[in-house]
């Protein structure tokens, strides 16, 4: 089982759209996946039409395995379950370490339905500063969507610095450009500039700025399901292919 976090220290960069579509791509490829919606707004749950669980607002719910597993909902797609967490983060690190420990009740309870999940995908909220270090340590890979603008350049820089300061393995970082608009010269210039410095941490797949992705809120389904032949879908599929290549054992 691999833990993949989708994280950005900046909001509105297409993080949830990425989590939702990647989860869909994993499931469609036959991998059992649990998408943990850790964002207080519950956006990925919304896309899968899963209602947020009222019971899980207690920050210490991770101590109650039964409550936790009962909150998991099957999505409309095979192999894809959603945990509509909607919660505080006091025990987030406990949650992650238990998920790894094969002897823990949490791990066993998770496996109860169809056997182990192959992938746990965390849709993280922005600015989880107090706990970000724990997420970074627990996850096998951290996917970082970046809009190619000056500001995003700076936030990615901050993230790299954070990793260095805290002695975290930088190889876990997998950036990718998101909401890319080919006609904007600023976008291509920023990509060129960032590639110059960070190329080894960036994937080649890019997610375009597309109305299909914006319409996900309307369809309440991954764009890969509602418009499988769209450019956006193809971009997410390419991203998925690159992720499984880069994250060993997925």
């Amino acid at each position, binding site marked *: 089982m691999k833990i993949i976090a989708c994280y950005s220290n900046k909001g509105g960069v297409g993080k949830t759209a990425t989590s939702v579509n990647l989860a869909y791509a994993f499931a469609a490829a036959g991998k059992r996946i649990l998408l943990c919606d850790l964002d207080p707004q519950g956006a990925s749950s919304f896309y899968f*039409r*899963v209602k947020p669980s009222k019971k899980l607002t207690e920050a210490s719910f991770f101590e109650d395995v039964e409550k936790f597993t009962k909150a*998991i*909902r*099957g999505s*409309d797609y095979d192999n894809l379950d959603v945990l509509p967490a909607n919660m505080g983060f006091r025990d987030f690190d406990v949650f992650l370490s238990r998920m790894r420990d094969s002897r823990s009740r949490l791990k066993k309870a998770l496996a109860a*339905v169809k056997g182990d999940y192959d992938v746990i995908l965390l849709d993280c909220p922005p600015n989880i500063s107090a706990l970000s270090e724990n997420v970074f340590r627990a996850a096998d890979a951290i996917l970082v969507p970046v809009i190619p603008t000056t500001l995003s350049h700076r936030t990615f820089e901050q993230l790299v610095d954070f990793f260095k300061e805290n002695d975290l393995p930088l190889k876990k970082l997998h950036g990718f450009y998101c909401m890319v608009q080919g006609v904007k010269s600023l976008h291509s210039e920023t990509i060129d500039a960032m590639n110059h410095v960070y190329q080894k941490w960036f994937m080649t797949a890019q997610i375009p700025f597309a109305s299909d992705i914006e319409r996900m809120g309307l369809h*309440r389904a991954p764009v890969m399901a509602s418009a499988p032949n769209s450019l956006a879908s193809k971009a997410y599929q390419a991203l998925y292919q690159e992720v499984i290549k880069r994250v060993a054992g997925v």
Partner: protein
Amino acid sequence: MLTLTEGATQFTVLDYFDESLRRAGRLLLETGPILELLMADGHVLSQAAKRSGQFVADLQEGQVKHALADLSPLRSLLPIGSGNLRKGTLALLDDDQKTHCRANLYMLSDTGGAGVILITLHGLRGYDKSLAALRAQIRDCDGTALSSGGLYANLFPKHVAYNAKPKVIIESDATTYQAASDIISTYLSVARANEGGIRADCDSEFLHDYRIAMRKIRSVLSLFKGVYEQDQTIDLKARFVDLMAPTGRLRDLDVYLQEKQRFYDLLPQTLYSGLDTMFGMFSEERNREKTKLTDHLHSIKYADEISSLAKLFAKRKKLRSGPTAALKVDGYACNLIWKRYRKICKIGGAIAPEMPDVEVHALRIHCKKLRYLMEFFSPLFAKPEFKDLLRPLKHLQDNLGLFNDYSIQQISLQDFLRQANDWANDTKLHVAQSVGALTAVLHLRQIEERAKIVDSFALFNSLQTQSTFRELFHDGRPKS
């Protein structure tokens, strides 16, 4: 939300004669080139329907064949009935259009019976309440589980369910005459249910079941002493012996051919050519015996005889009572079981690895009779204790049965060699070598089996078993 497929396809339900699949809650459908197996848990497996015969072993490799591996390899898949199939899916959605559970629908119709909708439910994690609600709603609409047997009965009203061991209801105040006649009448029906399958040579189990039913009838005639008038009893015994006579050789050959591989496994490869010749002859002889038996079952003489016997035991006007006919069956049953048990204990008391064959055979026959008695009268007794007694008895019988098989096979192999005069010289030599080696191996097996009998008898004769037998049967009244 309901989604239906366009148009209907033709389907045929396949199952064993004893409905092994239906009883296990499974359904096997052949729809054109596809075989679909609906599992008890709602899973559906499929594979190509193309096959070289009607046995599971004849199917192509695939999910369905794999899932059917638990069935007896001796039975063949038979068409239970056909009709039209239309498929659909039902999804239960909430106000956000989120699916809570799904159901796959198989609409089966045009079968001469009522149309049936077969539903397999598929819950989604975390929506157990919705799944339970849908299940309850299906129950409210008189939905039943596949294993309850309603499907075949509703779809194919002319289909008759077969049970090799039907329960014969015996009331405790019934007389021995009533009980014996009910048992015989029931097993006559069992025997007759197998006639079609024997004639069509679908699989060897039809003849096997036919013979067991007949043997049970014969054992009622001999074990229920005095229940019918003496002359009539003698006459009836002879009539049933005559009915069974043409089936014996075919059954022996069926057993040889089923165990063919086991015989090859017993000998080195250098002796295979003799076995090839022998099994070739068995196969040819089986064909001849099969034709003879089919002709016999088709004959007017047979039809007259079997229906006259069925009528005799059903109407009972001409079935004359003997001296014990009016006895209450419960006390009578206790007596019979107790006496038979005591006989077994008597032989068993002297049991030792070196006991003569005749003694072992006597023990086997007594055990068989005890088993029949206990099975006939099981409705009269409390279940748990009864089962506790049957388990070690069955185990002992298994040993005794194997011992007997090894002994009979040695004799019949010797008989087989006596036909050797008509064979070519090199055939004679090959076959004699193989049969000689086989006889030696079988003899060794027989000795090994005899040693096991001592242990299984000790298990059967435990203090616990002794006291249960005494408690249940000694004072002549069943405690249920």
